[in-house]
Protein backbone atom coordinates (compact mmCIF):
# COMPACT_ATOMS: atom_id res chain seq x y z
CA UNK A 1 0.00 0.00 0.00
CA UNK A 2 1.19 3.51 -0.82
CA UNK A 3 1.35 6.18 1.83
CA UNK A 4 -1.14 8.97 1.21
CA UNK A 5 -0.77 12.72 1.69
CA UNK A 6 -3.20 15.61 1.80
CA UNK A 7 -2.02 17.86 -1.03
CA UNK A 8 -4.67 20.54 -0.66
CA UNK A 9 -7.64 21.62 1.42
CA UNK A 10 -10.52 24.00 0.84
CA UNK A 11 -13.75 24.90 2.58
CA UNK A 12 -16.47 27.51 2.77
CA UNK A 13 -17.60 29.49 5.77
CA UNK A 14 -20.44 27.68 7.50
CA UNK A 15 -23.69 29.60 7.72
CA UNK A 16 -27.13 29.68 6.19
CA UNK A 17 -26.07 30.32 2.60
CA UNK A 18 -29.45 31.42 1.25
CA UNK A 19 -28.06 32.46 -2.14
CA UNK A 20 -25.86 29.39 -2.74
CA UNK A 21 -26.84 25.94 -3.98
CA UNK A 22 -25.28 22.55 -3.27
CA UNK A 23 -23.28 22.97 -6.49
CA UNK A 24 -22.13 26.50 -5.63
CA UNK A 25 -20.88 25.42 -2.21
CA UNK A 26 -19.20 22.28 -3.49
CA UNK A 27 -17.43 24.16 -6.30
CA UNK A 28 -16.16 26.82 -3.89
CA UNK A 29 -14.54 24.23 -1.60
CA UNK A 30 -13.20 22.06 -4.44
CA UNK A 31 -11.63 24.96 -6.33
CA UNK A 32 -10.00 26.20 -3.13
CA UNK A 33 -8.54 22.72 -2.56
CA UNK A 34 -7.13 22.71 -6.12
CA UNK A 35 -5.66 26.17 -5.60
CA UNK A 36 -4.15 25.13 -2.28
CA UNK A 37 -2.60 22.03 -3.87
CA UNK A 38 -1.30 23.99 -6.85
CA UNK A 39 -2.90 21.49 -9.22
CA UNK A 40 -6.36 20.54 -10.40
CA UNK A 41 -5.33 17.09 -11.51
CA UNK A 42 -7.88 14.58 -10.27
CA UNK A 43 -8.97 11.14 -11.43
CA UNK A 44 -11.63 10.22 -8.88
CA UNK A 45 -14.16 12.08 -6.74
CA UNK A 46 -15.99 11.00 -3.61
CA UNK A 47 -18.82 13.30 -2.54
CA UNK A 48 -19.99 12.96 1.03
CA UNK A 49 -23.51 14.05 1.83
CA UNK A 50 -26.34 12.90 4.05
CA UNK A 51 -29.45 14.94 3.41
CA UNK A 52 -29.70 16.03 -0.24
CA UNK A 53 -32.05 13.17 -1.18
CA UNK A 54 -34.49 14.40 1.44
CA UNK A 55 -33.90 18.17 1.61
CA UNK A 56 -33.28 18.92 -2.07
CA UNK A 57 -34.70 15.73 -3.60
CA UNK A 58 -31.25 15.38 -5.14
CA UNK A 59 -29.30 12.20 -5.76
CA UNK A 60 -26.48 11.35 -8.18
CA UNK A 61 -24.16 13.87 -6.59
CA UNK A 62 -21.06 12.16 -7.99
CA UNK A 63 -21.74 12.99 -11.65
CA UNK A 64 -23.34 16.30 -10.71
CA UNK A 65 -20.30 17.57 -8.83
CA UNK A 66 -17.74 16.15 -11.29
CA UNK A 67 -19.54 18.11 -14.02
CA UNK A 68 -19.80 21.19 -11.80
CA UNK A 69 -16.06 21.38 -11.27
CA UNK A 70 -15.27 20.73 -14.94
CA UNK A 71 -14.06 17.17 -14.45
CA UNK A 72 -16.40 15.15 -16.69
CA UNK A 73 -14.98 11.71 -17.28
CA UNK A 74 -13.58 10.95 -13.83
CA UNK A 75 -14.95 8.26 -11.53
CA UNK A 76 -17.34 9.89 -9.07
CA UNK A 77 -19.91 8.80 -6.54
CA UNK A 78 -21.58 9.77 -3.29
CA UNK A 79 -20.67 8.22 0.06
CA UNK A 80 -23.31 8.20 2.78
CA UNK A 81 -22.94 7.02 6.36
CA UNK A 82 -25.31 9.47 8.07
CA UNK A 83 -23.32 12.14 9.92
CA UNK A 84 -20.16 10.02 9.56
CA UNK A 85 -20.32 10.49 5.78
CA UNK A 86 -17.35 12.85 5.73
CA UNK A 87 -14.97 10.59 7.62
CA UNK A 88 -16.19 7.56 5.70
CA UNK A 89 -15.71 9.26 2.31
CA UNK A 90 -12.22 10.37 3.31
CA UNK A 91 -11.33 6.76 4.07
CA UNK A 92 -12.60 5.67 0.64
CA UNK A 93 -10.39 8.30 -0.97
CA UNK A 94 -7.37 7.20 1.04
CA UNK A 95 -8.01 3.56 0.06
CA UNK A 96 -8.19 4.51 -3.62
CA UNK A 97 -4.83 6.28 -3.54
CA UNK A 98 -3.14 3.78 -1.20
CA UNK A 99 -4.14 0.85 -3.37
CA UNK A 100 -2.99 2.47 -6.59
CA UNK A 101 -6.46 2.48 -8.13
CA UNK A 102 -6.29 6.26 -8.33
CA UNK A 103 -3.50 8.81 -8.16
CA UNK A 104 -5.29 12.04 -7.38
CA UNK A 105 -8.54 11.84 -5.47
CA UNK A 106 -10.79 14.69 -4.43
CA UNK A 107 -12.98 14.02 -1.39
CA UNK A 108 -15.58 16.72 -0.93
CA UNK A 109 -18.43 16.96 1.54
CA UNK A 110 -21.40 19.22 1.05
CA UNK A 111 -24.65 19.86 2.91
CA UNK A 112 -27.38 22.47 2.65
CA UNK A 113 -29.53 22.16 5.73
CA UNK A 114 -31.17 25.58 5.38
CA UNK A 115 -33.33 24.42 2.46
CA UNK A 116 -35.52 22.52 4.93
CA UNK A 117 -37.97 23.82 7.49
CA UNK A 118 -37.13 22.62 11.04
CA UNK A 119 -39.50 19.60 10.95
CA UNK A 120 -37.97 18.48 7.63
CA UNK A 121 -34.43 18.87 8.94
CA UNK A 122 -35.37 16.92 12.05
CA UNK A 123 -36.95 14.13 9.97
CA UNK A 124 -33.87 14.06 7.70
CA UNK A 125 -31.46 13.71 10.62
CA UNK A 126 -33.63 10.91 12.05
CA UNK A 127 -33.22 9.01 8.76
CA UNK A 128 -29.99 7.64 10.23
CA UNK A 129 -32.21 5.41 12.39
CA UNK A 130 -34.59 2.54 11.55
CA UNK A 131 -37.67 4.24 10.16
CA UNK A 132 -39.97 1.35 11.11
CA UNK A 133 -39.03 0.97 14.77
CA UNK A 134 -37.00 3.99 15.89
CA UNK A 135 -38.05 7.09 13.94
CA UNK A 136 -41.57 5.65 14.01
CA UNK A 137 -41.80 6.52 17.73
CA UNK A 138 -41.40 10.19 16.83
CA UNK A 139 -38.00 10.36 18.49
CA UNK A 140 -35.55 12.86 16.99
CA UNK A 141 -31.80 12.47 16.73
CA UNK A 142 -31.41 14.92 19.62
CA UNK A 143 -34.10 12.97 21.50
CA UNK A 144 -31.99 9.82 21.23
CA UNK A 145 -29.00 11.75 22.54
CA UNK A 146 -31.22 12.95 25.38
CA UNK A 147 -31.99 9.37 26.44
CA UNK A 148 -28.31 8.68 26.98
CA UNK A 149 -27.71 12.16 28.41
CA UNK A 150 -30.23 11.56 31.22
CA UNK A 151 -28.90 8.07 31.87
CA UNK A 152 -25.33 9.40 32.04
CA UNK A 153 -26.30 11.93 34.72
CA UNK A 154 -28.22 9.34 36.70
CA UNK A 155 -25.59 6.59 36.57
CA UNK A 156 -22.52 8.70 37.28
CA UNK A 157 -24.15 11.39 39.42
CA UNK A 158 -22.89 14.04 37.00
CA UNK A 159 -24.40 17.52 37.06
CA UNK A 160 -26.15 18.87 33.96
CA UNK A 161 -23.80 21.88 34.04
CA UNK A 162 -20.70 19.71 33.74
CA UNK A 163 -21.95 18.09 30.54
CA UNK A 164 -23.16 21.45 29.21
CA UNK A 165 -19.61 22.80 29.65
CA UNK A 166 -18.72 20.98 26.43
CA UNK A 167 -20.68 23.64 24.53
CA UNK A 168 -19.01 26.46 26.47
CA UNK A 169 -15.53 25.09 25.60
CA UNK A 170 -16.45 24.71 21.94
CA UNK A 171 -17.57 28.32 21.73
CA UNK A 172 -14.41 29.53 23.49
CA UNK A 173 -12.34 27.81 20.81
CA UNK A 174 -14.38 29.20 17.92
CA UNK A 175 -13.46 32.81 18.73
CA UNK A 176 -11.30 34.03 15.84
CA UNK A 177 -12.13 31.05 13.62
CA UNK A 178 -12.92 32.63 10.24
CA UNK A 179 -15.06 29.76 8.94
CA UNK A 180 -17.03 29.10 12.15
CA UNK A 181 -20.79 29.66 12.11
CA UNK A 182 -20.92 30.90 15.72
CA UNK A 183 -17.47 32.37 16.56
CA UNK A 184 -18.36 33.83 19.94
CA UNK A 185 -18.35 32.83 23.59
CA UNK A 186 -21.46 31.54 25.33
CA UNK A 187 -21.60 31.41 29.14
CA UNK A 188 -22.68 28.33 31.06
CA UNK A 189 -25.55 30.37 32.49
CA UNK A 190 -26.80 31.16 29.01
CA UNK A 191 -26.59 27.50 27.98
CA UNK A 192 -28.50 26.38 31.05
CA UNK A 193 -31.12 29.12 30.61
CA UNK A 194 -31.78 28.20 26.97
CA UNK A 195 -35.03 26.31 26.27
CA UNK A 196 -35.20 22.53 26.42
CA UNK A 197 -34.76 20.91 23.02
CA UNK A 198 -35.30 17.35 24.29
CA UNK A 199 -35.05 17.15 28.08
CA UNK A 200 -32.47 17.24 29.61
CA UNK A 201 -30.72 18.69 26.54
CA UNK A 202 -30.92 22.48 26.16
CA UNK A 203 -31.05 24.16 22.76
CA UNK A 204 -27.58 25.66 23.28
CA UNK A 205 -26.13 22.18 23.81
CA UNK A 206 -27.05 21.21 20.24
CA UNK A 207 -25.25 21.89 16.98
CA UNK A 208 -27.33 24.22 14.85
CA UNK A 209 -28.35 24.09 11.21
CA UNK A 210 -25.72 25.17 8.74
CA UNK A 211 -24.66 24.95 5.11
CA UNK A 212 -21.12 24.31 3.98
CA UNK A 213 -18.66 22.33 1.95
CA UNK A 214 -15.14 21.10 2.66
CA UNK A 215 -12.77 19.25 0.36
CA UNK A 216 -9.34 17.62 0.42
CA UNK A 217 -7.14 16.55 -2.46
CA UNK A 218 -5.25 13.31 -1.85
CA UNK A 219 -2.20 11.94 -3.65
CA UNK A 220 0.61 9.45 -2.99
CA UNK A 221 2.95 10.84 -0.34
CA UNK A 222 6.17 12.44 -1.52
CA UNK A 223 8.47 13.03 1.44
CA UNK A 224 10.08 16.07 -0.15
CA UNK A 225 6.89 17.96 -0.89
CA UNK A 226 4.14 16.81 1.37
CA UNK A 227 3.52 18.18 4.79
CA UNK A 228 0.39 16.30 5.87
CA UNK A 229 0.52 12.50 5.92
CA UNK A 230 -2.48 10.25 6.52
CA UNK A 231 -1.20 8.07 9.36
CA UNK A 232 -4.41 6.04 9.70
CA UNK A 233 -8.05 5.89 8.71
CA UNK A 234 -10.51 3.44 10.21
CA UNK A 235 -14.21 2.81 10.02
CA UNK A 236 -16.30 0.66 12.35
CA UNK A 237 -19.95 -0.03 13.03
CA UNK A 238 -21.68 -0.80 16.31
CA UNK A 239 -25.18 -1.70 17.53
CA UNK A 240 -27.74 -0.04 15.27
CA UNK A 241 -30.53 0.17 17.85
CA UNK A 242 -30.21 1.99 21.16
CA UNK A 243 -32.53 -0.65 22.62
CA UNK A 244 -30.13 -3.44 21.78
CA UNK A 245 -26.87 -2.45 23.52
CA UNK A 246 -25.19 -4.01 26.51
CA UNK A 247 -24.36 -0.46 27.66
CA UNK A 248 -26.17 2.56 26.24
CA UNK A 249 -23.36 4.85 27.43
CA UNK A 250 -20.72 3.16 25.28
CA UNK A 251 -20.31 3.61 21.54
CA UNK A 252 -18.61 0.34 20.56
CA UNK A 253 -17.98 1.64 17.04
CA UNK A 254 -15.91 4.49 18.47
CA UNK A 255 -13.85 2.13 20.60
CA UNK A 256 -13.21 -0.17 17.70
CA UNK A 257 -12.37 2.55 15.17
CA UNK A 258 -10.06 4.23 17.69
CA UNK A 259 -8.24 1.02 18.59
CA UNK A 260 -7.64 0.25 14.92
CA UNK A 261 -6.48 3.77 14.08
CA UNK A 262 -4.08 4.09 17.03
CA UNK A 263 -2.59 0.70 16.19
CA UNK A 264 -2.26 1.40 12.50
CA UNK A 265 -0.73 4.88 13.05
CA UNK A 266 1.44 3.52 15.85
CA UNK A 267 0.83 6.52 18.08
CA UNK A 268 -0.35 6.79 21.67
CA UNK A 269 -3.05 9.05 23.11
CA UNK A 270 -0.47 11.36 24.68
CA UNK A 271 0.99 12.00 21.22
CA UNK A 272 -2.29 13.45 19.90
CA UNK A 273 -1.77 17.23 19.89
CA UNK A 274 -5.13 18.14 18.37
CA UNK A 275 -8.44 16.32 18.60
CA UNK A 276 -11.67 16.92 16.68
CA UNK A 277 -14.69 15.05 18.06
CA UNK A 278 -18.30 14.81 17.00
CA UNK A 279 -20.35 16.94 19.42
CA UNK A 280 -23.74 17.15 17.74
CA UNK A 281 -24.89 17.52 21.33
CA UNK A 282 -22.76 17.94 24.45
CA UNK A 283 -23.22 14.35 25.65
CA UNK A 284 -22.01 12.91 22.35
CA UNK A 285 -18.83 14.94 22.71
CA UNK A 286 -18.32 13.69 26.27
CA UNK A 287 -18.90 10.03 25.38
CA UNK A 288 -16.66 10.36 22.32
CA UNK A 289 -13.78 11.59 24.50
CA UNK A 290 -14.28 8.52 26.70
CA UNK A 291 -14.67 5.90 24.00
CA UNK A 292 -11.74 7.29 21.99
CA UNK A 293 -9.75 6.53 25.13
CA UNK A 294 -8.75 10.03 26.27
CA UNK A 295 -10.53 9.76 29.61
CA UNK A 296 -12.12 7.03 31.68
CA UNK A 297 -15.84 6.20 31.30
CA UNK A 298 -17.89 8.48 33.51
CA UNK A 299 -15.13 11.09 33.83
CA UNK A 300 -15.57 12.84 30.46
CA UNK A 301 -17.74 15.69 31.69
CA UNK A 302 -15.37 16.52 34.53
CA UNK A 303 -12.41 16.35 32.11
CA UNK A 304 -14.08 19.01 29.96
CA UNK A 305 -15.34 21.21 32.76
CA UNK A 306 -11.94 21.36 34.53
CA UNK A 307 -10.30 22.54 31.30
CA UNK A 308 -8.37 19.54 30.00
CA UNK A 309 -9.81 19.98 26.50
CA UNK A 310 -8.98 23.68 26.10
CA UNK A 311 -6.35 24.84 23.63
CA UNK A 312 -3.70 24.88 26.36
CA UNK A 313 -5.02 21.75 28.10
CA UNK A 314 -3.96 18.10 28.05
CA UNK A 315 -6.04 17.25 24.95
CA UNK A 316 -6.89 20.35 22.89
CA UNK A 317 -10.30 19.45 21.48
CA UNK A 318 -12.50 20.99 18.77
CA UNK A 319 -9.98 23.75 18.24
CA UNK A 320 -12.13 25.72 15.77
CA UNK A 321 -15.35 25.26 17.75
CA UNK A 322 -16.46 21.72 16.89
CA UNK A 323 -19.94 20.91 15.61
CA UNK A 324 -21.48 23.23 18.18
CA UNK A 325 -19.70 26.46 17.26
CA UNK A 326 -17.85 25.86 13.98
CA UNK A 327 -21.11 24.36 12.73
CA UNK A 328 -22.46 21.04 11.49
CA UNK A 329 -23.22 20.86 7.76
CA UNK A 330 -23.74 17.17 8.38
CA UNK A 331 -22.28 15.37 5.36
CA UNK A 332 -19.40 17.87 5.16
CA UNK A 333 -18.61 17.96 8.87
CA UNK A 334 -16.13 15.08 8.88
CA UNK A 335 -14.15 16.84 6.16
CA UNK A 336 -14.16 20.15 8.03
CA UNK A 337 -12.61 18.27 10.95
CA UNK A 338 -9.89 16.84 8.70
CA UNK A 339 -9.20 20.25 7.10
CA UNK A 340 -8.93 21.78 10.57
CA UNK A 341 -6.45 19.16 11.77
CA UNK A 342 -4.44 19.82 8.59
CA UNK A 343 -4.44 23.58 9.32
CA UNK A 344 -3.19 22.89 12.85
CA UNK A 345 -0.39 20.61 11.63
CA UNK A 346 0.67 23.19 9.04
CA UNK A 347 0.73 25.77 11.85
CA UNK A 348 -1.76 27.82 9.83
CA UNK A 349 -4.56 27.90 12.39
CA UNK A 350 -4.12 31.59 13.26
CA UNK A 351 -5.73 32.51 16.58
CA UNK A 352 -6.92 28.89 16.95
CA UNK A 353 -3.37 27.47 16.69
CA UNK A 354 -2.29 24.78 19.15
CA UNK A 355 1.42 25.19 19.77
CA UNK A 356 3.70 22.64 18.06
CA UNK A 357 0.86 20.49 16.76
CA UNK A 358 2.39 17.46 15.03
CA UNK A 359 -0.25 14.76 15.25
CA UNK A 360 -4.02 15.15 15.13
CA UNK A 361 -7.09 12.94 15.24
CA UNK A 362 -10.58 13.49 13.80
CA UNK A 363 -13.61 11.44 14.79
CA UNK A 364 -16.70 11.35 12.59
CA UNK A 365 -19.82 9.78 14.09
CA UNK A 366 -22.95 8.53 12.34
CA UNK A 367 -26.33 7.83 13.87
CA UNK A 368 -26.33 7.32 17.60
CA UNK A 369 -22.71 6.17 17.55
CA UNK A 370 -23.45 3.26 15.22
CA UNK A 371 -20.84 4.28 12.64
CA UNK A 372 -17.49 5.82 13.51
CA UNK A 373 -14.65 6.92 11.25
CA UNK A 374 -11.33 7.89 12.80
CA UNK A 375 -8.55 9.66 10.92
CA UNK A 376 -5.07 10.31 12.27
CA UNK A 377 -2.87 12.84 10.45
CA UNK A 378 0.71 13.80 11.11
CA UNK A 379 3.14 16.39 9.92
CA UNK A 380 5.45 14.94 7.25
Amino acid sequence: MRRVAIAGIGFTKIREHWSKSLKDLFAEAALKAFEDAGTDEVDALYVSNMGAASLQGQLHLGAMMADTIGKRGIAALRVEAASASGGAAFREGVKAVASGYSDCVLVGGVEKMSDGIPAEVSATLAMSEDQEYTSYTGVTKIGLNALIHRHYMERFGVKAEDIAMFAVRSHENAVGSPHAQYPFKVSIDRVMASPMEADPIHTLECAGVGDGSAAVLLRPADEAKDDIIVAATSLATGAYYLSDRSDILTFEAVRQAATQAFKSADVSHSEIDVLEVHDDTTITGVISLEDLGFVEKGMGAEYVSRGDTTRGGETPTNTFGGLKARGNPVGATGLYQICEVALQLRQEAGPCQVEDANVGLAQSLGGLGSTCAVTILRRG
Partner: protein
Amino acid sequence: MSVPRYWRETRYRYRLIGEMCTECGAIFFPRRAVCLKCGSVELEEYKLKEIGTVATWTTIRNPPEGYEKYAPYIVALVELDDGVMVLTQVVDIEPEEMKTGMRVEAAFRKVKEDGSSGIIEYGFKFRPIIE
Protein backbone atom coordinates in the same frame (compact mmCIF):
# COMPACT_ATOMS: atom_id res chain seq x y z
CA MET B 1 -46.33 5.57 3.17
CA SER B 2 -47.32 2.69 0.89
CA VAL B 3 -49.96 0.26 2.14
CA PRO B 4 -47.68 -2.84 1.98
CA ARG B 5 -44.94 -1.02 3.87
CA TYR B 6 -47.46 -0.35 6.60
CA TRP B 7 -49.16 -3.74 6.84
CA ARG B 8 -45.87 -5.65 6.65
CA GLU B 9 -45.11 -4.43 10.20
CA THR B 10 -48.60 -4.36 11.70
CA ARG B 11 -48.49 -7.83 13.23
CA TYR B 12 -45.29 -6.98 15.11
CA ARG B 13 -46.14 -3.40 16.00
CA TYR B 14 -49.76 -4.02 16.98
CA ARG B 15 -49.00 -7.04 19.15
CA LEU B 16 -45.40 -6.39 20.28
CA ILE B 17 -43.90 -9.43 18.64
CA GLY B 18 -40.16 -9.95 18.39
CA GLU B 19 -38.09 -13.06 17.88
CA MET B 20 -36.37 -15.65 20.05
CA CYS B 21 -33.33 -17.63 18.95
CA THR B 22 -34.18 -21.34 19.00
CA GLU B 23 -30.51 -22.19 19.65
CA CYS B 24 -29.60 -19.93 22.59
CA GLY B 25 -32.87 -18.33 23.71
CA ALA B 26 -31.80 -14.72 23.09
CA ILE B 27 -34.75 -12.40 22.42
CA PHE B 28 -34.76 -9.57 19.91
CA PHE B 29 -37.02 -6.68 19.02
CA PRO B 30 -37.45 -5.85 16.22
CA ARG B 31 -37.12 -9.25 14.55
CA ARG B 32 -33.83 -9.98 12.80
CA ALA B 33 -32.20 -12.39 10.37
CA VAL B 34 -29.29 -13.57 12.52
CA CYS B 35 -28.96 -14.10 16.29
CA LEU B 36 -26.53 -11.55 17.71
CA LYS B 37 -25.51 -13.87 20.55
CA CYS B 38 -24.77 -17.15 18.74
CA GLY B 39 -25.08 -16.46 15.00
CA SER B 40 -27.95 -18.88 14.49
CA VAL B 41 -30.44 -18.08 11.73
CA GLU B 42 -33.15 -20.16 13.40
CA LEU B 43 -35.36 -17.63 15.13
CA GLU B 44 -39.06 -17.88 15.92
CA GLU B 45 -41.72 -15.36 16.84
CA TYR B 46 -41.80 -14.33 20.45
CA LYS B 47 -44.56 -12.32 22.12
CA LEU B 48 -42.93 -9.67 24.31
CA LYS B 49 -44.08 -8.91 27.83
CA GLU B 50 -46.33 -5.86 27.85
CA ILE B 51 -45.18 -4.54 31.21
CA GLY B 52 -41.86 -2.93 32.01
CA THR B 53 -39.83 -0.20 33.72
CA VAL B 54 -38.67 3.15 32.33
CA ALA B 55 -34.86 3.05 31.99
CA THR B 56 -34.49 6.56 30.61
CA TRP B 57 -36.72 9.11 28.89
CA THR B 58 -36.95 12.45 27.15
CA THR B 59 -39.55 14.97 26.06
CA ILE B 60 -39.62 15.74 22.35
CA ARG B 61 -40.39 19.43 21.95
CA ASN B 62 -39.34 19.98 18.33
CA PRO B 63 -40.78 16.97 16.52
CA PRO B 64 -40.04 15.64 13.05
CA GLU B 65 -42.48 15.99 10.16
CA GLY B 66 -45.74 14.16 10.80
CA TYR B 67 -45.57 14.33 14.60
CA GLU B 68 -46.09 18.07 15.07
CA LYS B 69 -49.58 17.93 16.51
CA TYR B 70 -48.57 15.57 19.34
CA ALA B 71 -45.71 17.69 20.71
CA PRO B 72 -44.54 17.83 23.39
CA TYR B 73 -44.51 14.06 23.86
CA ILE B 74 -42.42 11.62 25.86
CA VAL B 75 -40.14 8.96 24.37
CA ALA B 76 -38.60 6.38 26.68
CA LEU B 77 -36.41 3.34 26.65
CA VAL B 78 -38.42 0.74 28.55
CA GLU B 79 -37.00 -2.49 29.93
CA LEU B 80 -39.76 -5.08 29.66
CA ASP B 81 -40.15 -7.70 32.35
CA ASP B 82 -38.52 -10.30 30.06
CA GLY B 83 -35.38 -8.12 29.85
CA VAL B 84 -36.00 -6.82 26.32
CA MET B 85 -35.60 -3.07 25.76
CA VAL B 86 -38.05 -1.19 23.58
CA LEU B 87 -38.08 2.40 22.41
CA THR B 88 -41.58 3.80 22.77
CA GLN B 89 -43.70 6.84 23.43
CA VAL B 90 -45.13 7.09 26.91
CA VAL B 91 -48.63 8.61 26.98
CA ASP B 92 -51.34 9.55 29.48
CA ILE B 93 -48.80 11.40 31.62
CA GLU B 94 -47.35 14.91 31.72
CA PRO B 95 -43.57 15.38 31.37
CA GLU B 96 -43.39 16.83 34.91
CA GLU B 97 -44.68 13.54 36.34
CA MET B 98 -42.26 11.27 34.48
CA LYS B 99 -39.66 9.38 36.50
CA THR B 100 -36.97 6.87 35.70
CA GLY B 101 -37.98 3.54 37.22
CA MET B 102 -41.68 4.12 36.63
CA ARG B 103 -43.76 1.02 35.80
CA VAL B 104 -45.51 1.15 32.44
CA GLU B 105 -47.72 -1.07 30.28
CA ALA B 106 -48.32 -1.34 26.53
CA ALA B 107 -51.32 0.36 24.95
CA PHE B 108 -52.63 0.39 21.38
CA ARG B 109 -52.68 3.94 20.02
CA LYS B 110 -52.74 6.10 16.93
CA VAL B 111 -49.21 7.00 15.88
CA LYS B 112 -49.74 9.51 13.06
CA GLU B 113 -51.76 10.39 10.00
CA ASP B 114 -50.24 10.30 6.55
CA GLY B 115 -51.83 13.52 5.34
CA SER B 116 -55.58 14.00 4.93
CA SER B 117 -56.10 11.07 2.55
CA GLY B 118 -53.31 8.66 3.55
CA ILE B 119 -53.06 5.84 6.06
CA ILE B 120 -53.79 6.44 9.73
CA GLU B 121 -50.98 4.59 11.46
CA TYR B 122 -51.43 2.72 14.71
CA GLY B 123 -49.07 0.89 16.99
CA PHE B 124 -47.93 0.42 20.56
CA LYS B 125 -47.23 3.18 23.04
CA PHE B 126 -46.78 2.70 26.77
CA ARG B 127 -48.66 4.29 29.65
CA PRO B 128 -48.18 4.37 33.42
CA ILE B 129 -49.69 1.46 35.34
CA ILE B 130 -52.30 2.75 37.74
CA GLU B 131 -51.78 0.84 40.99
